[in-house]
């Protein structure tokens, strides 16, 4: 990263420009740190303290009431569970199916390969949003509205993941596959025992992409789910923390409760963030710098 960051200038000599530049970046970082610090502190404050017009960057009248209220009284555990189910099953199936298809596309001599690639590329050109309404109709015909199945099924495979897995598989020398075949191994066995094991970085990248995407999925549950017991976390939070401030509900949800909801939704993503940094950023860079 640092190869020519200083263009060979003396690294120890800080010019006025360097100081101003550092100041600029610190200000940018503050636009990230202050909002999050504010939200975390509010979630850990008492209900009364969180409603007062104070600049809060540290918990005031420390209390876990916010978390207790939103988790138990407002039953956030249920949408949390729904989101977990959809994310886990959806991600596993997504990775498996995309890998299977990606593996098929690395073989140079499969008849119909060009047709398969075109078939996949066309699906990538159809924006999901353009088929939103027909998708609702199709899922209704299948009696899938108001089920968690429909959320697992939506975006179950993507051309993007297939091509990404294919690229990762392509970086494994093809001779391995050929010599295993000479030894009498079948294609599925080669895929499961050799390719899936060697492409761990690829699997991790696609898994993380998909995990984040599914955890944050909003449009699909908004449209396909009306039954509040099947709500996912994002939809439930939208109702609890955003709609409750505009509509006159019969009881007030205090700020600490709302902010606790936000922190609960962020938590799983913060837990996986170190892995994201390790794989996903490398993945992005590989994709961006590849000639």
């Amino acid at each position, binding site marked *: 990263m640092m190869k*020519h*960051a200083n263009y*060979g200038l003396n690294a120890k000599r800080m010019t006025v420009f360097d100081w101003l530049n550092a100041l600029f970046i610190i200000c940018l970082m503050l*636009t990230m740190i202050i909002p999050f610090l504010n939200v975390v502190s509010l979630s850990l404050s008492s209900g009364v303290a969180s409603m007062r017009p104070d600049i809060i960057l540290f918990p005031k009248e420390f209390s876990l009431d916010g978390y207790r209220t939103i988790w138990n009284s407002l039953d956030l555990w249920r949408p949390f569970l729904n989101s977990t189910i959809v994310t886990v099953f959806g991600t596993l199936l997504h990775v498996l199916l995309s890998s299977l298809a990606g593996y098929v596309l690395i073989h140079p001599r499969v008849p119909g390969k060009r047709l398969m690639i075109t078939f996949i590329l066309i699906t990538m050109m159809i924006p999901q949003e*353009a088929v*939103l309404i027909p998708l609702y109709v199709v899922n209704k015909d299948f009696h899938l509205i108001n089920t968690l199945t429909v959320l697992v099924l939506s975006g179950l495979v993507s051309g993007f993941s297939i091509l990404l897995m294919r690229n990762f598989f392509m970086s494994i020398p093809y001779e391995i596959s050929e010599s295993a075949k000479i030894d009498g191994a079948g294609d*599925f066995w080669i895929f499961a025992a050799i390719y899936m094991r060697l492409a761990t970085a690829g699997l991790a990248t696609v898994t993380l992409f998909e995990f984040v995407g599914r955890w*944050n999925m909003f449009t699909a549950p908004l449209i396909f789910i009306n039954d509040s017991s099947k709500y996912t976390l994002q939809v439930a939070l939208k109702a609890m923390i955003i709609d409750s401030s505009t509509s006159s509900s019969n009881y007030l949800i205090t700020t600490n409760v*709302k902010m606790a909801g936000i922190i609960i939704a962020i938590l799983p993503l913060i837990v996986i963030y170190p892995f994201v940094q390790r794989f996903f950023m490398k993945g992005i860079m590989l994709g*961006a710098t590849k000639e």
Partner: protein
Amino acid sequence: MRAIRKYGVLYAMMLPVVIYFIIYGYYPLARGLQISFQDYKLMGERPYIGFANYAAVWHDPFFWKALGNTVVIGGGILVFGFVAPLVIALSLNEVMTAWFKKTAQMLLYIPHLLSWVVIGGMWIFLLSPDTGIVNLVLHKVAGIEPIHFLAESTWARWVMILVSTWKDMGYSCILFLAAIVSINPSLYEAARMDGATRGQLVRFVTLPQLKGTMKVIILLNTLGVLRIFDQVFVLRNPSTSSQVDVLMMYTFQKGIMEMQVGVGAAASFFVLVFTLILTLAVRTLTRFDEVE
């Protein structure tokens, strides 16, 4: 026949994906086209009514208002979402302390990972007139009276554009940084031997070398413009809806909320056509295909 015997397993491995794409990719597209020509009701007869749904969308002033909002908000996001990460990447590249640079990158990337419900919920609160930290700070520092950022129509679009830029700048910034790192160091050496200053190195080496990445980012962001939905759905409210409701919001309202499925489907096809036109236009303008 021989091919099937020889490659049977491979075809079987591809089969689930093919079936999925037919049912959830191609079929809904065909079905949507059919619905757009029908007077579609959830129950009972669904007579074909020609282009009546398309005409209904075409003559609906709200549709054109939504298109206008999409152009203004999307255009704003396009400009800010391009310039901000580029400036930040160039600035980070001048930083000589590795840990400082890394920390900044890590922090700036976080909002991109979070959903619009989380980001929207945070900013609705941060920008609220009586308890939001932004107004509290503005009042304390400059004595400005509380601004209703999310309710005043002058601010509503700016909030959409700026919050979106804030959320996604870390992502594009990483793409730019990755491209800067892969620039051939000998170009810098040669320029330095000619006596180039730091500013000139950026102007004459870094920026021209980033052309390819710039085109990729512009193309990717352009494709996203017509898809803006979650963010508007979360941040809108009755007092600003006429300023911020975008095309997808219009489609959603017609097709799902008002259950005018045929009209919604017709609107979707307008969006699809706009997407195609926009993609072609950007490809031609940036001559994207020439990069590779």
